[in-house]
């Protein structure tokens, strides 16, 4: 067990009533079990919805387009309470299977605000890349984009739509850059590789050969101390597209990256999350 994995003592998972959210829950439970961490579920009652329900002229159209009915606050709140109870029960069942210490909280407000607030009380926050949205096929939801843009803590953006069709579990891949945040990123990746018994691949930038060698050397020294082996791959160019290409080449199962990673180039973390078909764990500076 690494120092980093010992640090992950509390994981907060943001949940909603979607099918994708059940997959996020599975992922969170598996991680919490592997890291022997407490798991806290968070369900946010969307303030936007509650506001809308108070406007008497607003109607809701069923997804099939067959029915139109008035939105009233009472029935909306009842629905939200029902969703919360369903999610709580799912969390209880999943945590019970692994004998996890668990809790569940319902918050009201804007989802992005509530999730960012949860970062302060958790060692790791897990959320889906897509939250319930009007269009089902957006690669990143509005909430995820807001959260990804705010440099806080460690947040794992899960990819619930990803279906494992074939192939073996791929390696944990880390976008490594020197500096304190880079070390935290590496420690986090080592911890994940250990609990999932997956190989570790380190992507490093090499704009100049000297930089590349220096970064690789620094990572190797750190890995020797942890007693773990890894493959090193030169990422070539910087930017989200280059990272997506590298992940695809390595068949990576998850990418760990710093909020301010030099490998992002001109892109933001949100751009990377949108471009990548894999889960992304973002580590903020100082996390």
């Amino acid at each position: 067990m690494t120092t980093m994995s010992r640090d992950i003592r509390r994981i907060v998972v943001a949940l909603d009533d979607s099918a994708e959210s059940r997959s996020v829950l599975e992922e969170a439970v598996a991680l919490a079990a592997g890291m022997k961490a407490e798991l806290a579920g968070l369900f946010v009652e969307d303030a936007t919805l509650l506001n809308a329900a108070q406007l008497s002229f607003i109607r809701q159209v069923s997804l099939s387009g067959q029915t139109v009915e008035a939105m009233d606050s009472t029935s909306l709140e009842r629905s939200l309470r029902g969703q919360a109870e369903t999610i709580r029960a799912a969390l209880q069942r999943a945590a019970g299977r692994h004998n996890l210490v668990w809790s569940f909280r319902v918050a009201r407000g804007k989802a992005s605000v509530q999730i960012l607030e949860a970062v302060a009380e958790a060692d790791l926050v897990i959320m889906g890349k897509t939250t319930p949205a009007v269009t089902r096929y957006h690669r990143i939801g509005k909430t995820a984009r807001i959260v990804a843009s705010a440099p806080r803590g460690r947040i794992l953006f899960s990819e619930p739509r990803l279906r494992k069709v074939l192939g073996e579990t791929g390696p944990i891949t880390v976008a490594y850059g020197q500096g304190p945040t880079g070390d935290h990123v590496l420690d986090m990746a080592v911890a994940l590789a250990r609990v999932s018994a997956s190989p570790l691949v380190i992507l490093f930038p090499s704009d100049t050969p000297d930089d590349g060698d220096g970064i690789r050397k620094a990572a190797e020294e750190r890995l020797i101390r942890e007693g773990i082996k890894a493959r090193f791959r030169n990422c070539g160019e910087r930017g989200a597209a280059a990272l997506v290409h590298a992940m695809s080449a390595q068949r990576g199962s998850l990418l760990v990256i710093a909020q301010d990673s030099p490998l992002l180039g001109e892109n933001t973390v949100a751009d990377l999350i949108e471009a990548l078909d894999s889960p992304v764990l973002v580590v903020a500076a100082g996390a």
Partner: protein
Amino acid sequence: MPVTPLPADKLRACCDLSGLAFETTDDLAGGEEVLGQERAFEAIEFGIGIDHRGYNIFVLGPTGAGRHRYVRRLLDARAADESKPSDWCYIHNFDEPRRPKALELPTGMGRTLRTDMTQLIEDLRAGIPAIFEAEEYRNRRHAIEQEFRERQEAIFEGIQEKAGQRNIALIRTPTGLALAPVRDDEVIEPQEFQKLPEDERKKIESDIEELQQELQQRLQDVPKWDKERRERVRDLNKETTRGAVACQIMALRAKYMEFGKVVRYFDAVEKDIINNSARLFLETEQDGPTNPLIAALQHQDHDGPRRPELQFRRYEINLLVDNGDDGNGPGAPVYHEDHPALPNLIGRAEHQAELGALLTDFTLLRAGALHRANGGYLILDARKLLMQPYAWEELKRTLFAREIKIEAPFQAYVSTITLEPEPIPLKVKVVLIGDRQLYYMLAALDPEFEELFKIAADFEDDLERNEETVARYAGMVAALARKLEVAPLDRSAVARVIDYSSREAGDSEKLSARVGTVSDLLFEASHVARNEGRAVMTGADVKRAIDLRIRRSDRIRERGLEQIHRGTILIDTDGTRVGTINGLSVLQIGGFAFGRPTRITARVRMGRGEFVDVEREVELGGPTHSKGVLILSSYLGARYAVDRPLSLRASLVFEQSYGGIDGDSASSTELYAILSALSGVPIRQDLAVTGSVNQYGEVQAIGGVNEKIEGFFDVCKERGLTGNQGVLIPESNAKHLMLRDDVVEAAESGKFTIYPIATIDDGIEVLTGEIAGERGDGGAFPEGSINARVEARLIELADARRRFGMSGEGGALQ
């Protein structure tokens, strides 16, 4: 003419093996294992030979006569020359899963087909997912999905764009979609909305209403598109699968092209795989963890084997009957079902518990004895068969229908889903083995029995004992010793076994045909010999084994002897008594029979010719016993004072008998007691008597003569043999004598005597020492003779009765 006692050499037959040259049974090669069953053998061979419906065989006869062994040997020999029957499989019925199809294949091909199908599915399980993973499929699938997404997104984007231009947002609710006014990207709060000018509010409401109608209208197209998408994906899946399946199935079709039903089965398999490929071959993968990381983590928690994938069962071949490698060698099957319960007979559908329900399918169909014996012979024990619920009725139904239908009892009355497998044609010869009583009961009570079992093979209980059969019997003993792997027998042991066989037959001129009893004796004698350190069994070992067998069983006999010895049961073995005589009876307890004496007494007085059988009066006597007593009355009435009414009342009692009595073997004994009572001449108590009598005073044969003699001998021996003691037996029973060594030795030394009695007159003379007497020319018995005294007493009673009647008191005479 005085009765001549039987000489000692007539008291048992002694086996003479001088004509056979052997030291031990190892020298006697090639003996038969069953003797004296020619009639049964002919019947079985006849029955096997007739290939026609209803010519099944019922083998009847005593237990231990070698019925199973001989039937098996004969059937094995016959079946070896016949061809092996087909293999039978059950396969999935893709049109009606509840009705699995039966498939007949040449011997050994069932296994090949099963292997081929297993291989096919294994190949497809690897091949189909690979095709679905290929770039070509993914691109085509992606194109379909993308088209649908774009159409769907076009709706929302169009609406969202229009809405955005009017500061309205499309939002997701728990149950659908809604349109709400926004400001600075946030839904306007109600209070703020109310502060807006009325015109603006109305405009917003109007815009929302308009957009809402458009949204509703366009959303109604989505399910139609989604259906279209699913159909296109399904068609793509079929097309993709077809390429993988067709070439493999084509190879199988070529291999089995001679078998139309198999080819049609392949057609159905191909169609089913193509239609269900995505669900069957990709489902498990697609239902797995959504994330590789989770997969890795979960894999660590579950190292056990994966749950069997039930969805592929439908492509299995249930090889119900595999005659290709059944371990029985060449030839038709000869199958003996030892436990003929209904499911073991006609097969069964097993069930598996699945989420609390019991489910079944064609792979859980199991063969019964009729399937295994189909094309050959089935041996069943009749008693076991009849004791199993529904088994007999179902066997008959199946034989009449000539097809095997796997069906659970009460299936017709149970509403749960079950299977109706296609029946399998049946061609089998059934051999039932049972006792005679069962055969006669079935023949009498079941009208269908004789239609289905036209051949009766009746095994004998015994066979003639002569020089030839004794030699063959010695050969049989030798063959049995080798088969049973017991120690070989020397000459004396073989002789002792043969004599034992005669004793078992209860006849010195017969040999028992129950080889099972001989087998048991060989086991036991061999054990005795080995305990004594002998490698070869001797006559002494056989005798010891017989003695030990008796010893194990004769606790009751010993207790009876003890009670007589202690005077609890009154039996005299010396002196004389009027109207009192020692009768003899046989008790059968388990497999052990023994004789014991019983005191029989008779009292007479004036009466109307009634014979009071006390045993009958208290319902302890059976009908045959009562018949014997009535014969006495007839004998007395017809022989003595025929011109007068029989005017006595005689009562007969089996003293100290508290159990039931039946049989007429004591009728002569009872008659002697009455004659003694009438004549007043005492009867010797050192003699015991057995034998029935007819109306003419002829003494007739009875059963269990050996046990009866030995029963009285044991009592006398216990008290000390005086030389005067003995037993009167019917003359016609002399040939049945196979007495114990000690009885024969006592007779040889003059200490015990066996009298063969032909008539009552002969017997009464031995018992009383007085002359019985024949009627002279004048019609009268000689004066002082027993018969004269009996007649005089009867005349006296008749006269007294007449006088009594004349006095007017006759009405009171009872």
